[in-house]
Each structure stands twice: as structure tokens, then as C-alpha cells.
């Protein structure tokens, strides 16, 4: 999934790094946070979940935009207990279409980056 999204975004002109392990992604981010504008993460991930990853990334750099992906229904009351929704800039329901992904990414980045 990460590789597919990477290719979709690269085809739209974005520079993307992809990880299939959230801990590795976090470690990578810690040392290169200035390089990134946006983090897209699945919610259900083993070890460090998407919610935990988003919180840790925001604690390192609050200006980073976060989009969470999920194929599942979200229990809003449970979600709100563990994550301030202000810390999430977008949600995308799987399966992800290229159009939806580009739209959401552009919106999060202030619409200043034209895809394609």
C-alpha cells in the first residue's frame, strides 16, 4: 500500500519517502523533519499506530500536516479521547483514488502545489 501511494504521488510530481514500519518512519523523520511538509499514515499499524505516529510527529514539528488513512469505520468518541482532531489535517477512506489523494494532499499543503 505504501509503495502504491508513493508511486501515485510521485506521478503527480511529489517527492515521497515510503515506509511500511511506523517506528522506522518515525526514526527517519526525527533526523530529517525539515525535509517534510506532510505525513500520510494508515491508522491501524502494529507497534506504533497511526494515531501515535501523528502525535509524535506533531510534537516534533507542529507545522507538519497529517493525513490519516483507514479502510475501517472510526469510533469517533474513542478517537477523540486519544487524538485532538486539530492535529489531523485530513482523513481518507480506503480504497484511495488518485484524484481523492491528490485533492486532499493539495488541500493540506494550502493548495499551492499543483499536481500532475
Amino acid at each position, binding site marked *: 500500500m505504501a509503495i502504491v501511494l508513493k508511486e501515485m504521488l510521485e506521478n503527480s510530481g511529489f517527492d515521497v519517502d515510503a515506509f511500511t514500519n511506523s*517506528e522506522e518512519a518515525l526514526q527517519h523523520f526525527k533526523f530529517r523533519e525539515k525535509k517534510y511538509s506532510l505525513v500520510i499514515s494508515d*491508522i*491501524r499499524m*502494529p*507497534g506504533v*499506530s497511526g*494515531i501515535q505516529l501523528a502525535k509524535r510527529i506533531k510534537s516534533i514539528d507542529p507545522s507538519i500536516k497529517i493525513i490519516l488513512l483507514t*479502510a*475501517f*469505520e*472510526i*469510533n469517533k468518541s*474513542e*478517537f477523540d*479521547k*486519544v487524538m485532538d482532531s486539530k492535529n489531523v489535517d485530513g482523513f481518507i477512506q480506503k480504497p484511495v483514488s488518485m484524484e481523492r489523494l491528490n485533492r486532499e494532499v493539495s488541500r493540506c499543503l494550502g493548495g499551492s502545489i499543483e499536481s500532475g
Partner: protein
Amino acid sequence: MKVAKLITINSNEAPEVLAVPEFPEHSILIYPNLSALRKVYSQYAKKRLEEGNEILLIIPYYETTDSVRAVLRNVGVNVSKYEKENVLVIMDSEKAYQKSEGVYNFNLLLNLLTKRADALGKRGVSIFADGGLFFLYGREEELVADEMDLPTEFDTKCRCFCTYHSEDFKNFSKQQEEQLLKHHYRCFYVRE
């Protein structure tokens, strides 16, 4: 993980190993990745459902219920037939671990299924239930408490495998880990 009680098994041999002894039991199964877990539950489902002596309940976390259906179909399980007969039930963990009047939907469903197994003269209900959801919402303590509330051996014909991704299992404290491994009837680590 250095705990004497933990048994390492290969995912290919898991369906046979898990099926012995007969019901009841409350055991734990730690898997390294989704592919290993899929091998275990799909092979187990194929064998047990074809024999026709069990009801099977699967509660996934790292894949959708439709993905579980696709995995089962890939190994030749007639998913629609078994679901129609209510001998195969697949429920997402978000729904399964929602509470109605203080009781998890999972418990209500299990109660119904064990009664149905009795009525149909089956050996019992086997369950693969993933605990991943509790980590998502920071409910590890509740999870441990719930696990400890469940008996090591059920007084109903129920064989429950609490499944944990190994990366999630590492989120437990050493004390919680010990507690869980001691409490379960059998503890497996699945290798691919």
C-alpha cells in the same frame, strides 16, 4: 521473549497443533506479520469447517472483514455457504469490542454461537480475536483486565485464540506480558 511457556510453531503446522487438545481453552497466539496470521486462520478454517464440527468466529484488526473472506476463498473455503449457515462469523474488531450495556458485542455473540453449537451438536466454537484495537485507543490496561477476567479454560465449549501482532505485544509492560502468558492455557509464537 524468554518465557518458558511460550511455544514456537510454524504457521504451516499451526492448524494441527492448535486443534489439540479439544475444547475448551483460552490461549494466546503471537504472530510476526499478517501473512503468518492469515496462514494460520485460513488453514484452520478450511480443515475445521470442512469437517463440519465447529463454528468459527474471526475478529480481525489489521485487515477488513472482506479481506478475511478473500483469504479464506483463496484456500478453497466456501465462505458464502458457511456464513449463510452461521457456522462462520467474521466481525471487525471495532464492532466486536463495542459495548452494549457494559457487555462487549463479542461476548454477546459468543454466547449465541456456543448455544448454537450445542443445538447443532457441534464440538464447539473456535475464535481468532485480535487485540490490536485496544492499543490504538490506549486501552492496554483494560485489555489485560479483560483477559484476566476470562478463564484459562472456559466452562463452555469454546476455544479462544487471542491473537497479537508481535509489535503490539511489545507494548505491554514486562509485568503485563508475564501476567498474560501465565494466564493463558497455551501461548504460541507463530513463525512463517
